[in-house]
């Protein structure tokens, strides 16, 4: 009740009028004030609203389990994490897997490999496709998160989440994508089918890499908010929205290769709108996640 009284009573109406995110920051702050953070509430919040960038790293870390829900242990845990990071880094350096010149992203990759015990015998070993996914995500993440340690941890946990939590749902996304596309724009889908491009759409880019490298980071992090908070369906709607946005161009293209190529390099200027629309679309089809108190 006290929380409610602290909140602006007008906040309810802001959204009706079309203002978004006016009160979100405050409510998020209220949420974050709790000792013993309520992970579920945070999840719901980040699914409903875009996260303020200043709290994004914290929320992500909490949601991804990098930080425990207790504020008290944050410092200690974070210290552990840092130690762990530095240990790994040290080890890698000792074993000469990496050097100072090694790009940070690759450092992350090696560290991840080391942690997952998949470190190849030699750095020169060929990379697996999953390594490429990691690299892409890490690269995007590097843009979003400043601190290396945080970046590594978030990337690691994000990838782990993709590999563990969404392992089952990710393969179903292309099907669902087709379904929603048909709901939104049957003609486009039929065009794609006609071009036999449906199966050749950049699903890997979209769903495995979560649009890393496809959308600019500023837009991407809003998508990833939803992914981190436990919804991988947003990816599907982003994809649908991309197709809808570039419908005319896509319709103009006839061959599957061209479509794929275009979709892999979509222009970035309208990404914000795409993401906003995609979130709307997602809310529309899956309903606004209700706070389960």
């Amino acid at each position: 009740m006290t929380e409610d009284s602290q909140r602006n009573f007008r906040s309810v109406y802001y959204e009706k009028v079309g203002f978004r995110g006016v009160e979100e920051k405050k409510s998020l702050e209220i949420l974050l004030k709790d000792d013993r953070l309520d992970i579920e509430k945070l999840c719901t919040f980040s699914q409903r609203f875009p996260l303020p960038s200043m709290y994004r790293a914290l929320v992500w870390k909490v949601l991804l389990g990098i930080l425990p829900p207790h504020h008290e242990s944050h410092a200690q845990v974070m210290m552990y994490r840092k130690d762990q990071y530095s240990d790994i880094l040290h080890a890698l350096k000792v074993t000469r897997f990496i050097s100072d010149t090694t790009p940070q992203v690759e450092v992350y990759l090696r560290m991840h490999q080391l942690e997952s015990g998949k470190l190849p015998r030699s750095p020169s070993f060929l990379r697996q496709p999953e390594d490429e996914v990691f690299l892409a995500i890490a690269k995007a993440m590097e843009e979003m998160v400043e601190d290396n340690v945080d970046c590594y941890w978030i990337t690691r946990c994000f990838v782990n989440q993709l590999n563990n939590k969404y392992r089952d749902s990710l393969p179903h996304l292309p099907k669902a994508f087709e379904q929603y596309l048909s709901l939104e724009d049957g003609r486009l889908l039929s065009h794609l089918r006609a071009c036999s491009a449906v199966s050749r759409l950049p699903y890997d880019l979209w769903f495995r890499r979560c649009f890393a490298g496809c959308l600019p980071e500023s837009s991407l992090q809003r998508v990833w908010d939803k992914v981190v908070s436990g919804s991988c369906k947003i990816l599907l709607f982003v994809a649908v929205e991309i197709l809808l946005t570039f419908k005319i161009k896509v319709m103009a293209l006839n061959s599957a290769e061209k479509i794929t190529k275009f979709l892999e390099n979509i222009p970035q200027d309208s990404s914000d709108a795409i993401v906003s629309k995609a979130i709307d679309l997602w809310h529309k089809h899956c309903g606004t996640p209700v706070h389960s108190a």
Partner: protein
Amino acid sequence: MAQPANVGELLSMLDSTMLGVRDDVTAVFKENLNSDRGPMLVNTLVDHYLETNSQPVLHILTTLQEPHDKHLLDKINEYVGKAATRLSILSLLGHVVRLQPSWKHKLSQAPLLPSLLKCLKMDTDIVVLTTGVLVLITMLPMIPQSGKQHLLDFFDIFGRLSSWCLKKPGHVTEIYLVHLHASVYALFHRLYGMYPCNFVSFLRSHYSMKENLETFEEVVKPMMEHVRIHPELVTGSKDHELDPRRWKKLETHDVVIECAKISLDPTEASYEDGYSVSHQLFTRFPPRSADVTTSPYVDTQNSYGSATSTPYSTTQLMLFSTPRHLPQTLSSPSARLLPEPLQATLWSPSSVCGMTTPPTSPGNVPSDLSHPYSKVFGTTGGKGTPLGTPATSPPPAPTCHPDDYVHISHTPQATATPPRKEERTDSARPCLHRQHHLPNDRGLEDLHRSKGSVTLSDLPVFLGDLASEEDSIEKDKEEAAISKELSEITTAEADPVVPRGGFDSPFYRDSLPGSQRKTCSAPSGTRGSIVNPEPFHSSLDKRGPDTPKQAFTPIDLPCGGADSSPAEDRDRQTSLETSILTPSPCKIPPHKGTGFGSTQPPPYDHLFEVALPKTARYFVSKKTEELLKKVKGSPEEDYVPSTSPMEVLDRLIQQGADAHSKELNKLSLPSKSVDWTHFGDEIRTLRDQLLLLHNQLLYERFKRQQHALRNRRLLRKVIRAAALEEHNAAMKDQLKLQEKDIQIWKVSLQKEQARYSQLQEQRDTVVTQLHSQIRQLQHDREEFYNQSQELQTKLEDCRNMIAELRIELKKANNKVCHTELLLSQVSQKLSNSESVQQQMEFLNRQLLVLGEVNELYLEQLQSKHSDTTKEVEMMKAAYRKELEKNRSHVLQQNQRLDTSQKRILELESLLAKKDHLLLEQKKYLEDVKSQASGQLLAAESRYETQKRITQMFELEILDLYGRLEKDDLVQKLDEEKAEAAEAAEERLDCCNDGCSDSVAGHNEEASGHNGEAKTPRPSGIRGSYGARGAGGSSSSSELSTPEKPPSQKAGPLSSWWDTTVGEPSTSIPTVGSLPSSKSFLGMKARELFRNKSESQCDEDGMTIRSLSETLKTEQGKDSGVEAKSPLNLDGPHLSPPAPDSVGQLRIMDYNESHHEHS
């Protein structure tokens, strides 16, 4: 409808000499005209008039009433068309019009007017034209609004006639032209006066033409010299002039005066306003107001007249009294004072009412004014009365009088008294009036004429004597009567300047040749002495009386024959007059005869110059010129175009009259008739001339009538003003009276007010007294009221008391009753108690008895049961005590119960608290647990990572070792070959020792390993030797595969086991060359390999992990307290404890935490 015969008869009767018949017939005609509306009678009358020229008919015709006007006009119109009757009909029309019939406004609509205009335009007979023009001029003021339609006709007529004046077409005699000129001149004045703008524009257009230029120069321009600029030329416009509204306000005489105003011609002009008025005022007022001595007139008087030692007083009188003063001065010196206010009142109207009343004509206003005046004096003094009228009559020539008187006074100086002189001069003046009057007289003033004739006959004698006062008085009386008449008739010819004109007129001139030079010199002298028109007047006055007086008689004659006698008389008169006048010495001042213009002007001369700037000078110069010419004997008439045509005409008339009389004188009557034919032509001319003259005179008379009308109006206004003034005075008196009244009333009011205030004061005092009384009474009343209230309250109290007392009484009664009742009860009770007492006594007795009995029995009883009672009592006491005890016990128990219950409650609450606390603790615990688990997880992951790192490091180290060993192997290959046999032996020993165990373990391992592993296994189991051997035997294979470490691992294990068993470790120093720690390492390495192979088979991985865990625990224990576990390490047996330990760990963990917390 009168029968023609009857009418003819009547008409003939009308001309009968019998006055009575004539009157009767006239009455009959008038009756007929009243009853009959047809044109017949009028036509007949007109015809008759044309035939006979009969006066009665004319009288009837001129007095025709409304319905017949049309017939008359139609008839006239008809006759105008005919040339033969034109002249007579026009004269008829003139007569009719001059009388201003009530239907005159119809003239403008009548067809007569256009035909008249046409006639004027067409006709060539000058007589007709002149008559017509005069009629037209007479008519114009009556029908001013008709100008609109006929204006151009008027102008055309003017243009035509003016040109005629010059061109003299055909057979026209010059005599006629003079008449025509005069009438044209009158027409000019009329048109210019009435329609100045239009007329001027007409003149401009008409005379801008070259052919008319000469006419303009000769005829019109001189006429224009006699007019002022009309104000309408400045303020008005052509349209405004013709506006009927402008004319509606003006009556006929107004129009006439309007026209006269703009004339500068003294004969025509009206002095009603403008400079003429100022002139009169100037001349009139100074003498009146000025002091006797300081007056400039004294000087003039002295210079002129007093040289011959005139009685100073008379001259003074004459000087100082203006003509109006004369009567007063004459009547009596004492009366002089009296009239002055009167005079003031009389004269004030002229200036007060602003009507410019002062008439230019001598007979007009002054005579009118003098009527009451003269009457007043008539009663007082005979002399004064007659004098009054003439004296007032010539006001326009006031300045002349002194001089006049001077002149005259000189003549009779020696003999005549001053008053008489005055009378004389005055008497002369009325004569002058009469002179003008006479020609106009027709039959109207027969009475006066006859009277005049009587006096006139005496007059010459009288005049000749100049001494007979009686005659003069008589004459004066007559003059008064005549002037009265004159004033009543009022002719337009009464213009004062006319005498002047007359002086210059042909009459005068004509008389000159016949008369002595003296006459000429006399007027010239007078005129020379005073350069003013007035002297002429005066001089003419002296001369004038004669001519008219003679004219009286002939006037009775018909018009045609009237000419002879007047001329004769005039002649005679002039001679007489001259004879009269000659004696006056002052008339011929020495310097007069020489130069007229150079004569020294009187001091007031400049006034006239101011008043009549140019005309006067011009006029005077002209006159002198004329006179000079006349002196020379050149009686030419129309050589002076600039002279007023009126004057010319006047002169002509005079001349004509003279000529006529001469002619007639020459001829005897019979011869006259004989020579009728011979002289017919001339006679006709003369007749025409006479006619023209007649017309002219008629026209003048008409003007005079207009003036008279106007004068009457002015008089009315004057009278009204006087009346109003009277009224004002009366009102003032009344006002004064009322003011007095008011003052009286005011005084009384003040008195009343004082009384009132006194009364009020009294009343006030009374009122205050009454008020104080009232107050006292009120006070008393209040006191009484209070008293009464007190009494009332007392009464109330008493009542209450009474009520209370009553209640008390009631209560007392009640009590009494009650007590009575009680008493009765008590008495009953008493009786009862008595009875009870009795009973009680009885019972007491019984009791006593019974007590005694009881005692008896008690004694009996005591004696019987003394022991038992003791026992019982003891028992009872015991029981009681016991009970007490129990009771206290119970109490105690209860208390305890209570405390325990409380305690229970306390404890319960404590318990709840504890529970709550516990819950909280649990929660907290959970919290902390989760926190710890979080931390633990982090730590775990860290540990995991560490493990990974370590693994990596191990791998690395192993790798490095592998490389090292490889190098060693290459070096020791030879040495090892030699010791191969020994190694084999040792291997056998090893086999015997741990056969059962190793076999099982190897079997297990073998199942998981490749075939390759079989070869190293036995060697591994058998010890380091075997391993070495195996290594030696299959060195190549070891290099390529990692299978070697297991064998190595086996080695250490066995060696460990060996050492623990107690076997001498010295036996395996070589084996010990492999570091003791290597046994652990090897195991690790093996595990690593296992891990490597995990990817192929996961099951093994699990066991290996568990194994590793066991190892870890063992390491953690380190001390190796339990020897069993190393024993169990071998083979699959090792695996069971591993999961156990894990489980233990978990449990322990929980427990530990639990313990920690607890």
